[in-house]
């Protein structure tokens, strides 16, 4: 029994300047399946470490592996590998291959925990790998102002990976913060993605995923999600995505999904929706955006319910004069109706689309006439006698007071 014990738990191979192993590569090569490679504090100038057996690579006292701009640092080609507590840095931008600090190639049950990844091309790159956990990592690139999209990689990049758990990561300074393509049944939770050149979160063809409690801040173009159905986005914060082509959340061909209890603050466009149908958008907070919602007429059967619209320049704008979506019980700060029966629901319907917002949609330069007296007058005339704005885009039961759902948000934080 005693003889078997070390094999069952694995032995520990220490790496440090004065240990038997002075390089990570050496230790990984000598290690047997199930072993732990314990890297102690210090700087190791290494690249091309290939992990080809189930190992636990553990950093103690924040060891630094410096790739020295020579190539990929860690490549995982085995199942059940854990990489934890390392600092990986310096990978060259390469236009021929996507070099990453940690790449996982067609393996499953990989755990990448609490690593710090600095100044790399791609940060964490998973291809065709299922059941992986990416948790508590900090991936930070560089200042992206003035850089070209092709000169940058993604911080966390997943391609054909199912059941991934991406949580508590902080990513910044890359092309896309979190990039998912063909990733299904995964969970993205508690991440902070900011200051990326393109999107904070970008996913395509990734069905059945759940996104909760993430913050996407000051990314070049916000968050883009495309060609996907059956997703849930809850309690996320989209803020500070300012710019000519920036969105809080861009939805393109998203169907049968729930967008609930999110906060959209200070974005040029809160949600931009194109060809998206059967979405349930409720209890969101739209505050101080340029456009809260841009709803193209290709969207059908979407429901907007119990959302708060405050301080937006335009609440809803659309490009056609038909509307197949449903608005109900939202709070609009521009609503001027009354409530005689005191049931907290306004007695007069509210039309969130203004004539001017339609005009701006059609002729963008006319935005320069914002707050001109003429524009205000036209809007008011149109409100009394609607003729251009879509007849059916109407909230029949607008709320009189701002909807207060902070309580359950606090509750979830306590539960969390």
């Amino acid at each position, binding site marked *: 029994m005693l003889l078997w014990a070390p094999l069952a738990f694995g032995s520990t191979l220490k790496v440090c300047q004065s240990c038997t192993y002075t390089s990570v590569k050496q230790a990984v090569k000598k290690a047997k399946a199930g072993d732990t490679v314990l890297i102690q504090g210090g700087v190791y100038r290494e690249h091309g470490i290939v992990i080809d057996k189930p190992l636990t690579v553990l950093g103690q006292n924040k060891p630094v592996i410096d790739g020295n701009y020579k190539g990929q640092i860690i490549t995982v080609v085995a199942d059940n590998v854990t990489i934890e507590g390392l600092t990986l840095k310096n990978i060259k931008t390469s236009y021929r291959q996507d070099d990453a600090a940690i790449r996982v190639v067609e393996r499953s049950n990989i755990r990448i925990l609490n690593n710090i990844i600095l100044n790399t091309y791609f940060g964490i790159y998973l291809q065709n790998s299922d059941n992986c956990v990416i948790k508590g990592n900090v991936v930070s690139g560089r200042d992206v102002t003035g850089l070209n999209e092709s000169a940058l990689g993604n911080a966390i990049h997943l391609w054909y990976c199912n059941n991934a758990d991406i949580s508590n990561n902080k990513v910044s300074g890359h092309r896309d913060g979190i990039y998912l393509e063909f990733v299904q049944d995964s969970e993205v939770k508690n991440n902070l993605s900011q200051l990326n050149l393109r999107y904070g979160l970008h996913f395509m063809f990734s069905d059945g995923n759940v996104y909760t409690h993430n913050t996407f801040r000051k990314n070049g173009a916000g968050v883009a999600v495309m060609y996907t159905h059956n997703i849930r986005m809850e309690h996320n914060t989209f803020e500070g995505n*300012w*710019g*000519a*082509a*920036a969105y809080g959340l861009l939805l393109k061909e998203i169907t049968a999904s729930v967008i609930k209890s999110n906060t959209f603050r*200070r974005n*040029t466009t809160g949600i931009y929706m194109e060809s998206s149908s059967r979405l349930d958008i409720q209890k969101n907070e739209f505050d101080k*955006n*340029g*456009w809260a919602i841009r709803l193209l007429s290709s969207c059908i059967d979407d429901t907007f319910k119990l959302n708060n619209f405050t301080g937006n*320049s335009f609440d809803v704008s659309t490009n056609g004069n038909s509307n197949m979506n449903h608005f109900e019980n939202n709070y609009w700060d521009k609503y001027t109706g009354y409530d005689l029966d005191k049931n907290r629901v306004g007695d007069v319907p509210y039309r969130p689309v203004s004539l001017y917002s339609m*005009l701006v949609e*059609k*002729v*963008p*330069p*006319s*935005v*320069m*006439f*914002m*707050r*001109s*007296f*003429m*524009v*205000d*007058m036209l809007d008011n005339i149109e409100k009394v006698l609607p003729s251009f704005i879509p007849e059916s885009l109407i909230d029949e039961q607008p709320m009189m007071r701002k909807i207060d759902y902070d309580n359950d948000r606090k509750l979830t934080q306590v539960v969390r």
Partner: protein
Amino acid sequence: MNKIIKYVFYDIIRNKIVLAYTLFLLLLSFGLFNLGGSPDKAILSLLNLVLLTVPLISIVFATTHFYNSYEFMELLVAQPINRKKIFMSEYLGVACSLSGAFVLGVGIPMLLFGATITGLYLVLTGVFITFIFVAMAFLASVITRDKAKGIGIALLLWFYFALIYDGIVLFILYSFSDYPLEKTTLTLTALNPIDLGRIIVLLNLDVSALMGYTGALYKSLLGNLWGIGLAFGLLLLWVILPLFSSRRIFSKRDL
């Protein structure tokens, strides 16, 4: 010249209308700053006010004042004084007292509640608009001897710049929406001092970024110091053009 300006200035102050104007602006700005949540919001509301009432009051007051002081001007013309000097002192007297009222009425609350660079631009824009519309009023008054006609022309000018112009431009933009219109819009807004003032202030508030591509273009043109300088230069041109043409007419015509 200084003597005449001083005389016109005191004459206007004794009039009490300017005093009422100052009080009106003071009350309104204090009210807006106390009512709205953030100073930015108050500045936006103030902007609407400045762009609508300030031109109206300036142009109507200046026209009536010009006609009312006709006899005084005739008296001065009989003296050995250059006509240009008489005209300029009348102009400066009226414009300075009105813009003084504006600076007091809007500038003091601004200093107290929201002393930002945008606030400064708002006050500067208001001063320029006062100067521009007083110049236009003088142009309207030197064109015709008839007081009713003069006030009519002045009001039409206000109506055109404050209301109709935006409508016309929006109509043009709508009709030619298939063409790239960014540069055209820029030129067209420069042809109206009220629009120019509005855009200077708007671009310096945060709302600018929502203006999409157009806004980005404007921001790159007007967002830096050079652009602001250029915009104020254009406003200065708007003062000089009507002022000099009316001065020319005044110094040549029969009184």
